[in-house]
């Protein structure tokens, strides 16, 4: 539970009493809603989005209760904010277990999971294949993953012989992981390698490996995924050098996608329809369509908001937000009377999109 506490305190601190406590839960579990996407963008929390997808609401609520009792957070304007004691605790937890630098929950949401499923099943398959043994219990049961691996092997068999393929895949993994080992003091390839199953030797479960390494299970899970993120990132930037590994990613789009309803709105928008028309066609409230636009502004760097907020006004809003160092709409509106709330939200979204760290 320790690391959930750390990340929750971190989000609460960033939100600075401007967002509800549930918003923290939605962010950490990666809820796909315009509001959560907006929170992740505005408060520069994209990295932490979807960091603890397995966290149950019940466990989260219990933890918040604990934080209140221990006075790490306190009640403030219908929500919670971090206390000095909480800040100290946060500093302590993070210095003990630093958030891994390669981790990016926003960018690699779900991609990491598919990548791991493919990688682990592929390696197990090759390990058996190599010993002329085709019958084993696959570590991944999903139909999608199994057919992908089957297909991959089918294609590769025509290109390489067994030995060459094994050697090449080993070489790529050895090299990419050695580089990680050299550059990172805290994240060792051990965290990943011992999870792999091979010929007559089953991989460890996350719980077993965390235990063996004396790590908090949640912190372990994040470090493990950070290795996947490192791999995905490095492979994508060195496609030739890691040509076999690149095949695991090639067909996967970066799955940062709009929610379904927003996609429908975006299509109409691109056909040149106005907000009013879209609301009419889709039989939705204007508010809802506005939420969709906010989401688009947060996700699509090519989306221009000039048609909705003139550039001069955009600048004014940004200056107000910066000088007051807040994302609170009412405070910003007090300084920029001529803007409405939708305009302010849109500008903040666009601005955070262009500022985002990747």
């Amino acid at each position, binding site marked *: 539970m320790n690391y959930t506490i750390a990340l929750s305190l971190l989000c609460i601190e960033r939100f600075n009493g401007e967002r509800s406590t549930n918003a923290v839960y939605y962010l950490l579990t990666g809820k796909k809603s315009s509001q959560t996407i907006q929170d992740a963008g505005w408060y520069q929390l994209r990295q932490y989005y979807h960091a603890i997808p*397995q966290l*149950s*609401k*019940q466990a989260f609520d219990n933890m918040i209760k604990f934080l209140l009792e221990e006075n790490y957070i306190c009640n403030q304007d219908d929500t919670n904010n971090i206390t000095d004691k909480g800040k100290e605790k946060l500093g302590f937890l993070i210095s003990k277990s630093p958030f891994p630098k390669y981790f990016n929950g926003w960018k690699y949401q779900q991609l990491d999971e598919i990548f791991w499923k493919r990688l682990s099943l592929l*390696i197990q398959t*090759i*390990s058996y294949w*190599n*010993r002329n043994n*085709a*019958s*084993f*219990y*696959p*570590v*991944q*049961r*999903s*139909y*999608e993953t199994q057919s992908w691996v089957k297909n991959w092997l089918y294609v590769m068999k025509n290109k390489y012989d067994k030995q060459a393929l*094994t*050697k090449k*895949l*080993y070489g790529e*993994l*050895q090299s990419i*992981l050695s580089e990680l*080992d050299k550059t990172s003091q805290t994240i*060792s*390839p*051990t965290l*990943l*390698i*011992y999870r*792999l*199953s*091979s*010929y*007559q*030797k*089953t*991989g*460890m*479960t*996350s*719980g*077993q490996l965390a235990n*063996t*390494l004396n790590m908090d299970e949640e912190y372990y899970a994040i470090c493990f995924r950070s290795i996947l993120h490192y791999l995905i990132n490095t492979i994508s930037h060195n496609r030739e050098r890691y040509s076999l590994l690149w095949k695991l990613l090639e067909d996967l789009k970066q799955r940062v996608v709009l929610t379904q309803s927003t996609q429908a709105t975006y299509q109409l928008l691109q056909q040149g329809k106005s907000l009013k028309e879209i609301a009419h066609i889709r039989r939705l409230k204007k508010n809802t369509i506005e939420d969709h636009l906010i989401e688009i502004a947060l996700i699509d760097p090519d989306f221009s908001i000039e048609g909705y907020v003139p550039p001069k006004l955009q600048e004014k809003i940004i200056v107000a937000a910066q000088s007051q160092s807040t994302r609170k709409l009412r405070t910003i509106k007090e300084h920029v009377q001529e803007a409405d709330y939708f305009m302010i939200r849109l500008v903040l979204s666009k601005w955070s999109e262009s500022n985002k760290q990747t």
Partner: protein
Amino acid sequence: MNLEKILYEKFSYTQFRNGQREIIESVLNGTDTIALLPTGTGKSLCYQLPGYLVDGCVLIISPLLSLMQDQVEQLRAKGEKRVVAINSFLSFEEKKQVLRNIRYYKFIYISPEMLHNEGIKKILQSLTISLLVVDEAHCISQWGYDFRPDYLEIGTVRKQLGSPVTLALTATARQEVRDDIKRFLKLEMVNEIIFSSDRPNIAYMVQRVNGYEEKRTTLLSLVKQLQGPGIIYFSSKKLADEWAKLLNEATSYNVGAYHAGLDMEQRILLQQQFLFNELDIMCATSAFGMGINKENVRFVIHFHPPVDIESYLQEIGRAGRDGEKSIAILLYSPDDIHLQMQLMEGELPNSLQIEYFGQYMLQAKVTINNKEQSSMDTFLQQPLDGFSEVQWRLLRKFYLSSRDENTFKTSIQHFIEKRKQWKQIKLQEMNQWIISSGCRRENMLHYFNEEKNIDVLNCCDHCGITMEIYQKVHSIKKERLKLNWQERLQEIFAISLD
């Protein structure tokens, strides 16, 4: 037709186990068959082998998703590619693809709720089904310990599929359950092949203790003495986790913990480690064991008594599949009754869960824009946090067959009340068995209307057991694991650096 030849070619066995040949011949003769074979004696072979001798496919209805997945992988591991499971693990796209290629498959596993889907039913109707298998057929009966309302409709579906030859399989069924199986599956001329539920190579022992502390020390000393591999059943995830940790430190065994709180990948790995003898002992909840074909389990210990005799028999049946001497030990303390009551109630949804489910569905209806049956179906497929698979299926079943929220609540509550009364009786029978005098094997057999007609050496604690034969032969030394990722990577790829 040489059955032994196929047995050897496809399954690498040289001879049939007790009962298998008779059942196989019965279905190959085109007779509807109810077969009662004790747990752990190779039920699945009874429909897998005939599959190779008929033209059409074998359709297997199986109650548990995890069990289904295990069976599919076991067949695949034997080199059979034409096998598939249609259940809620498949995404919409995957299901479409599987159904498009359905003719390719010889063995089609399906979960009962999928049979309600009209599209799937239509596709199944177009197939030549040479054998319809109803696995765990006791689930069809209200008198069974594991009643699943979903099963009731299999009879209708069976007619719609043109009444193919049917094989109903179960390990434990009293007469009234077998009658229900016939009635609900609409089987007319039936061949009933009943084998004794007795497994003479398993010794029965009940160890009475007073209170939790004594139970702890008893378990610890038992594990230190007994020859592994073994399974220890606990009533909660927490206990299973705690004991795995404790036993790892206190004994020379490698011990794992298995329960429904783990994700799919961890569960697969743990099963695998146990199967490969990388783990010697599994501390588990009742979620563990179905579909695991481990032959050499030497002991099964229950830290608490289960809630009915059928469950107990099924769980201890995981010992001694290789026919070698094994022992089942039940730790019993008079105050266990409270825990059993809790367990019993926990199998069914409680009123809070029903309320929560109702509200969740109200919200869901708003979210699901098109209120077509199919989208509601998909929505209900995976249990929410805090619901067991069994609870969820029950809620789902009652929800989909109710007109409105109120009918739903009244009908499910009525069902649960009746079910609880029934379970209460089963619980009493279990505890009666524990405290009764006389031979435990005989008492157990009487429960299933059977007679004990063979003498068993090391039968039960009342008849006398020589404990020495279950004790550890040689002690193993646990190696400390040295982690070196470079070496492990080489090992995986069988790369030697020389």
